[in-house]
């Protein structure tokens, strides 16, 4: 049975790209002078992610307290002091993998922290629609082998998910027609992709999906439907229609758009087959959400308050909490290096991040601890965009000398317990 053992050498197994939630694993990565070269793909997102890592030298990065280098023990102790002093901490960023999330949940329970990822707004567009009405979704392998019509709602995902069409089998011998449903005012696409059609609508996306839903449900809409009426007919005629959308591209109250899309899928499924394909949840957001959900029974934007486990999908929005100064300390996690920098605030901040974020964490009441990146300096697991596949991440190198997020969080939890004892 040894043959089915995963190989222990980090280089032998396929590399899973951790920088977007498609988690592609069919590309090569080769060490070259000063960095990593991607082979087999032109993906700009993967290249940009890789560009933040050196293939040879270990990153020179030390923990810092108030912008001054220190040893790891001192940094942990300082972080523990900041958390101990906090009455309501916020855990933000959440750029980590399953192991990091597991360790973070323990700390969240001990501190009563609220956790909300970067991209929490986009994540909760999907979750709130799910909580209200449910959904019917599909996965990349299904789309690749089954879909004959893929409607990209609002935007063409390729701009942010460069391998999207390839992962859907488009241009790889697949026969799916791809339609982009976008506002009339949207700029024309840079490079015309063969076979790609654009259906434009006037007004906003809320109205457009509502109209499309009405057409699909065969309600009387008079002459108002236009191109959307034709698209509805094609959805009905499709053997397996897929509605793909990018949660991060949706406007405020985007849950309503997702709900309309789910309604369209539901209507179609009464007679033919269709499913939704949400794109999003990268940089650890959907992964940390999944882990917190299975451990506690409730998703992110939950806290272990003195009265019990409180889930507040609107009130516990990190941006709102920071703007309202409803929290008094911030633990920020950004281990992939592709995340936005930690927010600027005068609240005490603890940042566990890629070494590049050190410069953004200076000044009083700050602790910075550089951490290893899952899929580069350490192994790990992330959920793919479709939520059903938990992809293994292999380390490209295992000598970067940086601790994992989980290592740091476990030590931090121990330090808190030590302080409480």
């Amino acid at each position, binding site marked *: 049975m040894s043959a089915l053992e995963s190989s222990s050498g980090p280089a032998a197994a396929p590399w899973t790209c951790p920088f977007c939630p498609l988690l592609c694993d069919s590309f090569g990565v080769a060490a070259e002078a000063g960095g990593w070269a991607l082979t087999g793909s032109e993906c700009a997102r993967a290249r940009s992610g890789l560009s933040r890592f050196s293939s040879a030298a270990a990153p020179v990065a030390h923990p810092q307290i108030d912008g001054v280098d220190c040893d790891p023990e001192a940094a942990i102790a300082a972080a523990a002091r900041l958390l101990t002093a906090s009455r309501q901490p916020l855990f933000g960023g959440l750029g980590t993998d399953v192991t990091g999330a597991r360790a973070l949940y323990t700390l969240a329970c001990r501190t009563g922290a609220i956790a909300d990822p970067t991209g929490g707004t986009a994540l909760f567009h999907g979750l709130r629609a799910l909580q209200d009405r449910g959904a019917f979704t599909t996965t990349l392998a299904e789309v690749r082998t089954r879909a004959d019509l893929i409607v990209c709602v609002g935007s063409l995902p390729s701009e942010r998910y460069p391998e999207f069409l390839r992962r859907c089998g488009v241009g790889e011998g697949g026969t799916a027609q791809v339609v982009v449903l976008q506002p009339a005012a949207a700029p024309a696409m840079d490079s015309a992709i063969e076979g790609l059609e654009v259906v434009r609508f006037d007004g906003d996306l809320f109205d457009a999906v509502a109209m499309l839903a009405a057409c699909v449900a065969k309600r009387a809409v008079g002459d108002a439907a236009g191109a959307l009426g034709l698209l509805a007919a094609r959805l009905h005629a499709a053997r397996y229609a897929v509605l793909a959308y990018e949660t991060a591209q949706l406007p405020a109250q985007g849950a309503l758009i997702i709900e309309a899309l789910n309604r369209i899928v539901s209507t179609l499924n009464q007679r033919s087959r269709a499913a939704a394909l949400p794109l999003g949840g990268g940089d650890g957001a959907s992964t940390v959400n999944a882990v917190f959900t299975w451990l506690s029974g409730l*998703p992110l934007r939950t806290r272990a308050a003195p009265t019990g486990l409180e889930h507040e999908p609107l009130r516990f929005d990190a941006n709102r909490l920071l703007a309202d100064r409803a929290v008094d300390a911030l633990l920020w996690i950004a281990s992939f290096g592709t995340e936005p920098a930690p927010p600027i605030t005068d609240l005490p901040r603890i940042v566990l991040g890629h070494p590049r974020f050190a410069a953004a964490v200076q000044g009083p009441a700050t602790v910075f601890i550089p951490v290893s990146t899952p899929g580069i300096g350490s192994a790990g697991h992330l959920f793919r965009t479709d939520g059903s596949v938990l992809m293994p991440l292999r380390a490209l190198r295992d000598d970067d000398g940086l601790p994992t997020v989980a290592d740091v969080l476990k030590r931090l939890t121990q330090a808190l317990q030590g302080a409480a004892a």
Partner: protein
Amino acid sequence: MTTTLRLRGGRVIDPTNGVDAELRDVHVRDGRIVALAPGEAATEEIDVSGCIVMAGGIDMHTHIGGGKVNLARLLMPELQRAGPNPIALPSNPLELASCGGCTPGTLATGYRYVEMGYTAAFEPAMMACNARHTHMEMGDTPILDHGAYVMLGNDELFLEMLSRGADFQHIRDYVGWTINAAKAMGVKVVNPGGISAFKFNQRKLDVDENHVHWQVTPRQVVHTLAKALCELGVPHPLHIHGSNLGVAGNIQSTLETINALEGLPAHLTHVQFHAYGTEGPKKFSSAALQLAEAVNAHANVSIDVGQIMFGQTVTASGDTMRQHAQAGLASPRKWIGADIECEAGCGVVPFRYRDQNFVNALQWAIGLEIFLLVNDPWRVVLTTDHPNGGPFTSYPHLIRLLMDRSFRAEQLAKLHPDVAANAALNSITRELSLYEIAIMTRAAPARLLGLKDRGHLGVGAAADIAVYREDADREAMFTTPAYVFKDGTLVARAGRITAVPVGGTHFVAPDYDRGIETLLRKHHAAQGGVNFDQLAIGHDELCGCCNGGRLLPAACFETTS
């Protein structure tokens, strides 16, 4: 110094070893049941007089982890409140906050099972593509040992191989490879061929009906998989969620599925949902008797019941075809479905079983009838198909229903009047004994899974022990055992968790011809979503997924082929 614990003065019920309520001491050393040499003394002693001592409970069919379970949690946050208030944090510092009920967090799942005297639980519906996630959740289910059955029979590759008449050996090797790759304890087939058929817009699939695309029947799927597992020597035979779940008249499908086995061993799961007739004014009737007669007549078949309990729950199933068909009954009105990776699907439909609803009341009666009409308790396992029939926390209530005829009659009388008046259950006088309950909740599941050192208290067995204080109210007795030991460690005392060790992972590793990998590699390159070389979970990775718990490979039996 090695300590030896003596549990003194309890009445031991250990059906595997033929022990029925004998007054005897049980000794534990290094996590195992031991016999003391003459003159040897125990170093610790617990007085368990007035108590019944059994092996720890084993739930062999409970949806405790993986994709659809987590979707159920995401769908139903409103269940995680106590009225207008949040659910209180645990008072026990050993516990982390985790909600309970019918969509519990993994942490609460572990705590609540253990407090009830259970020490192992098996997730029955693991998708190969979701295996890492499933193992992660089970690894985050504290204390309990765990394992999972991987789903086959709706994956396009299997159906394609069957359709083109591929060499059986190749199909068998593919099954063997999948079990190894997913680190599974067995194989489950769900609505054989039907989940795939739904992706091709087929809405119904009878046992001898062709899959609209692959032109194979559920009969072929079931027989092929059952035979493959037999030849691979996998101890737990094919775990079957049959065709037409929940459909009036589906007893026919269930009996045909048993026939499709042609004597091969198999386990029919949550049979309550598959034992419906079409008699009576509402064209919905109990077929428990027909089912029980078939089970009694087919020694190759074992079952678990999937008893329903009244109240709110969530049904989480791989059976997209049937869940889509039932989604109109969702309460509250929302549901989740998914087509998944050309291999499986899932459907999560919240449901409230109502005692004044004729169908629900009859479902309740049918489940109990099955328990009481099947003669051989070694082939019946106590389940509610958590959470589909009701949460596992209702087991003590279910045990009382089975053991206490007057209590049962009292409950039956409260139901929908047609059921209360006419159910065959009225005339069944059987009351299960503690010995039979011990079989259905630990000895039989261990045997059906091939766990030689679990489910009993013989010398050498793992010291997974539940000590229940004798109480005529069996519900109270089984709700709160006085002591629960996991591998010899006291993990719960009088309903309070006392230690939180990480449980172990059961799996099997059957031999197969690795030549099949050439075909699999080609298939995944052409149609998969993941690089073939990433699919198999290695031992080190499994250990990490499972939070560092012990790996517990179960032995396969010798095969003649």
